[in-house]
């Protein structure tokens, strides 16, 4: 865990090196509560994200759930948009947009996702808050865990786990509610009529929430999450990172309030260890940026509080960049560097992609058509001088309103569509497959007695390119042209 910024610090000869097993038993972290500008932002985002997560499945649209991923019927509903399996390209685009935006804000200000939006962080915060309310502040929690098991301890722990369990179960219920209409799912759950898989997934996600937010916490960030490991690829020397201002803070040491630290040969750091106590991953930011740091800025808030009490200027731990430290930028210059080539390029690509996607979604054609021509019965003589070809036509009306369509074909003189009642009507979000035939007058001369087939090389089958046009009756703009072929046998 080499420090990232600055030369190695003078190592305080305090703690001796300890020996642990290779598979070390984890020491539980008891994060101290912190208030401040960043903490306020974090909690605002917790409220915002959870309002969206828990609230969205309850909204309705067009008589159905507004956001529903109906895996069984293979339709994804997002308000007015219906996505069919054929629209999976939009999922690809969504993932690309997510990745690009991640690259953008990570290169600007580091692990903003981790500290403010990641469900692991969010649920850990919620569960820690519950723990704090039931078990007490940091010292109380440490004492409680060290105490032997008494009735009081059991009751407190039971209360805490019940509260956790309730939140976890509701989370699992909400998650499954995105895939199975949430109201009916809730009724089924209460009346014990859940299907085995629905029940399983609700309990599974509930268990995962309870386990990850209640127990695993920083272990996910430290050992499981790949983002922690490749963050360094996304940072550059102008990325804003949480930094301890070593020249200002060192040498650290406690002193009385009111004393001028320089006179004592001390830096601003009073060695209160608040920055270590509030850290949810248990690191000491004074050692420099480490991969465990999730960018929650609790240490900034904590230190600023102490600085405030001591009457010093805030910002001993603050967001700054490697370049700003090395080259002594002032604040304005540092912030101007946010608009460098890398971020501008990311932004441009992101905006362009968003614009293209929005345009594509706005002009989506609700009609999808697939035409497969018969291969066994390639062509037939329906009547003397009339040739028929058969096709299987699949028409999909992806709109949520019923529509009627006319089917026409062109490309061969006299081509006519038979075998289907026109106009074809389809219900809302319905797909139909039916056989259709095309007839065309045969160009072959009927009365000509020629040698039997097979003895004349020049008479080969004639394949013509044709085009089907399927058009909505009430909307000329909803139209599809599908190419196919018409075969005249010889």
């Amino acid at each position, binding site marked *: *865990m080499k420090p990232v910024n600055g030369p190695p610090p003078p190592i305080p000869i*305090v703690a001796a090196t300890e020996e*642990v097993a290779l598979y*070390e038993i984890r020491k539980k972290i008891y994060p101290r509560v912190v208030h401040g500008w960043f903490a306020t932002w974090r909690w605002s985002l917790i409220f915002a994200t959870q309002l969206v997560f828990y609230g969205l499945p309850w909204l309705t649209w067009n008589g159905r759930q507004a956001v529903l991923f109906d895996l069984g019927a293979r339709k994804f509903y997002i308000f007015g948009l219906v996505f069919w399996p054929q629209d999976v390209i939009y999922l690809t685009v969504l993932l690309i947009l997510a990745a690009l935006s991640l690259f953008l804000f990570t290169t600007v200000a580091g692990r903003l996702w981790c500290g403010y939006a990641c469900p692991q962080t969010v649920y850990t915060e919620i569960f820690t808050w519950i723990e704090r309310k039931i078990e007490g502040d940091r010292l109380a929690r440490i004492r409680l865990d060290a105490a032997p098991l008494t009735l009081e301890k059991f009751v407190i722990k039971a209360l805490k786990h019940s509260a956790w369990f309730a939140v976890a179960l509701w989370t699992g219920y909400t998650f499954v509610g995105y895939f199975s209409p949430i109201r009916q799912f809730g009724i089924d759950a209460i009346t014990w009529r859940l299907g085995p898989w629905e029940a399983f997934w609700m309990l599974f996600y509930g268990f995962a929430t309870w386990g990850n937010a209640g127990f695993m916490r920083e272990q996910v960030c*430290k050992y499981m999450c790949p983002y922690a490991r490749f963050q360094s690829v996304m940072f550059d020397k102008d990325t804003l990172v949480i930094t301890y201002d070593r020249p200002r803070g060192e040498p650290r040491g406690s002193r009385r309030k009111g004393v001028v630290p320089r006179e004592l040969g001390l830096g601003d750091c009073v060695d209160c260890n608040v920055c270590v106590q509030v850290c949810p991953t248990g690191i000491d930011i004074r050692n420099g940026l480490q991969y465990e740091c999730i960018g929650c800025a609790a240490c900034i808030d904590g230190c600023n509080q102490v600085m405030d009490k001591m009457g010093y200027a805030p910002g001993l731990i603050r967001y700054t960049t490697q370049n700003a430290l090395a080259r002594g930028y002032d604040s304005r210059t540092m912030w101007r560097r946010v608009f460098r080539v890398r971020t501008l390029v990311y932004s441009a690509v992101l905006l362009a992609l968003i614009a293209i996607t929005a345009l594509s979604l706005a002009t989506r054609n609700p009609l999808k058509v697939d035409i497969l021509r*018969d291969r066994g019965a390639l062509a037939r*003589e329906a009547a*003397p001088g009339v040739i028929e070809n058969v096709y299987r036509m699949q028409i999909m009306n992806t709109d949520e309103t019923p529509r009627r369509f006319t089917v026409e074909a062109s490309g061969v003189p006299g081509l006519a569509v038979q075998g289907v009642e026109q106009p074809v009507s389809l219900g809302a979000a319905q797909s139909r497959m039916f*056989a259709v035939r095309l007839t065309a007058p045969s160009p072959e001369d009927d009365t000509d007695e020629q040698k039997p*087939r097979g003895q004349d090389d020049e008479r080969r089958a004639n394949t013509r390119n044709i085009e089907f046009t399927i058009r909505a009756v009430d909307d000329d703009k909803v139209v599809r042209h599908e190419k196919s072929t018409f075969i005249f046998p010889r």
Partner: protein
Amino acid sequence: MSDFTSGFWSVYVALLTIVSIAACGVLLYVMGKMRVKKPPQAASADTTGHVWDEDLSEYNNPLPRWWMWLFYITIAFGFLYLALYPGLGSLPGLLGWTSAGAYANERKAFDAETAPLYAKYLAMDAKDVAKDPAAQAMGERLFLNNCAQCHGSDAGGAFGIPNLRDQDWLYGGEPDKIKESITNGRNGIMPPFGASLGPDGVSNVVNYVRSLSSLPADPLKVQLGKPLFMANCSPCHGQDGKGNQALGAPNLTDQIWLYSGSASIVTETVTNGRGAAGAAVSRMPSHQDMDPAKIQLLTAYVWGLSNRGAAAK
């Protein structure tokens, strides 16, 4: 059911698997006993001691204990799985699972679901089945899967393959005859007459046959062809040319042609015959292995295609 020629390989695979998994467990245990220096966060941790490329070394930071327990659980699960399911060579596993058996179970479950439905339709008369929209939908799907490759997705037939939507039947259009065609197949054979009639004789017969359907024909050749037809063709096609459903000989007086009514094709038919070796023809395959209920549904569907008025559609 081993494909190996010797039992040695099964033992070899099983032994290797067990030893490998056990070795993982042993390695885990031994490593668990190891102790490493964990410094306070300031200094660098222990390195493994190896040095590559002059100055490249590797930290030996401790792993979390829960990871070790997960690994042990995985090993235990691995042993349990191999005991229950096939994996150790050709040992079948305590649960006796096979992929063929899994498929058979799925089929059984599916058949159990469809059995009452099938039984209901099998007991009905085919003409009544044709009135049932659900049965007709099933029949359509069965048709598209089994029959449409030759007869066309619209059941209109192809060169040498009958149109099932018309009223013209080679072997009879009643449900029992349709069922017979599906179950046993059909193999229509027409002998060749090219050698016996000669090119002129063939030409005369062809013109006569076309005249039966009121198609353009040379009047003189029609006259010459009639006695030839009566001598050679009427035993199967009938004196009036209306065909013989017992033999599958088509009706030559209508506008419906199995192989095309153009002069050149009829000439080919008469010259080379149909069904004899070398002449292009399609045979209707038999479906004796098909579930009788499916045959019943197909019969009803096919009958319904030609009897739209009588069927509910």
